[in-house]
């Protein structure tokens, strides 16, 4: 009995191991072949998104590489460390791209990508993630409506303006769904305040290079 168990165990183990090794080898090979390309794709994608809100004319550096780690901050609403991207024109800081989270959406957190010009003026905002009601609260997505473009060019200005029109502010909303825009407006406003508070640190060198 003992011997057969040992033998069977050995046999099965060997079998499985051989296949596992072959499989792993193939996988490792594929990974090695593609991972560079994957990283590139991911970067390209990110760049595509960033370039939607950061005008081509405002930078000449490799934004993706010019990054900064941002620690959790109540003004940004982030709970984990996020990455900020910095656009420079002729070496001078021009735009910073921050990630922020609006915690009080209708059905949860709304993730935002916010580009702020050196002047403190907004370059653009995009929604990264959200769980708002499809068809009602999702007009904040660029794919659904241009609403989010309403932030373009806005500057911190008067606090009272940073509300939806219904509450006496300057931002549009869709009737029947004000919770969502309220949350986004509030979050963008706070991000601007964060920027104002940390402007210098944000553009400080050295540039943290992405490891290959």
């Amino acid at each position, binding site marked *: 009995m003992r011997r057969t168990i040992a033998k069977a165990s050995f046999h099965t183990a060997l*079998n*499985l191991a051989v296949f596992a090794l072959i499989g792993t080898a193939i996988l490792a090979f594929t990974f090695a072949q593609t991972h560079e390309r994957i990283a590139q794709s991911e970067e390209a994608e990110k760049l595509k998104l960033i370039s939607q809100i950061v005008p081509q004319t405002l930078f000449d550096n490799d934004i993706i590489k010019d990054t900064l780690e941002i620690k959790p901050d109540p003004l940004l609403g982030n709970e984990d460390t996020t990455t900020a991207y910095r656009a420079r024109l002729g070496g001078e800081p021009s735009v910073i791209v921050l990630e922020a989270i609006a915690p009080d959406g209708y059905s949860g957190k709304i993730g935002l990508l916010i580009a702020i010009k050196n002047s403190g003026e907004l370059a653009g905002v995009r929604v990264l993630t959200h769980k708002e009601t499809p068809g009602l609260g999702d007009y904040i997505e660029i794919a659904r409506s241009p609403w989010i473009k309403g932030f373009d060019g806005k500057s911190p200005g008067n606090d009272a303006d940073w509300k939806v029109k219904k509450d006496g502010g300057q931002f549009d909303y869709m009737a029947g769904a004000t919770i969502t825009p309220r949350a986004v407006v509030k979050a963008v406003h706070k991000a601007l305040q964060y920027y104002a508070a940390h402007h210098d640190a944000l553009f400080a060198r050295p540039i943290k290079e992405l490891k290959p």
Partner: protein
Amino acid sequence: MNYQEFKDILYNGVWKQNTGVVQLLGMCPILAVSSSVVNGVSLGLATSVVMALSGAAIAPIRTVVPNEARIPVFILIIAVLVTVIQYLMNAYMYSLYVVLGIFIPLIVTNCIVLARIEAFAAKNPPMQSAVDGFAMGLGLTAVLAVLGGIREIFGHGTLLSGIDMALGESAKSLVITVVPDYHGFLLAILPPGAFITLGMLIATKNWLNLRAEARARAETSTVQTQAA
């Protein structure tokens, strides 16, 4: 493998034993990824490739593997194939990869893959197994395409939206707006819509089968009367 055999396997996979509307296997991707034609077809094709390759890979080694390790080994092979495809998609079709999300690795556990391997590849030679896998995958793709089409039209009023993700920017012009200024029947693109639409498809297949049977019966009876 002759032509007839080839045709039989194909017919079996695409229509008679269709995974989506007959065998009801591999349904998670069918339901989750069929909110548009492009998504559906892309995952369907990826699955077809995996099925064909795994059929071909497993058929020759089926005798070597001891019984108790059979499932782990088969799964291992499938997993390797899937991961390879996943990386290729990740590298070369990034946006599509993002949309299909978790469902690419889940091809591994897509029941239809293992089910076909157990039911077919474990008993047949590699060539046939590959064809069978691919035919099954095609059947799946067909269901995904129809389902995706219906849901997309009802939900958004468009067809082929997102084709640029698969074929590149230039393909954007292929998107068809079926109903302009459409309100959007959101139910269709949400999970309930997926279930209900698939239910309708199954019923349609049942109906077609019934009709075909009735016609066949009518034919045989005319033949008989003629003979008489």
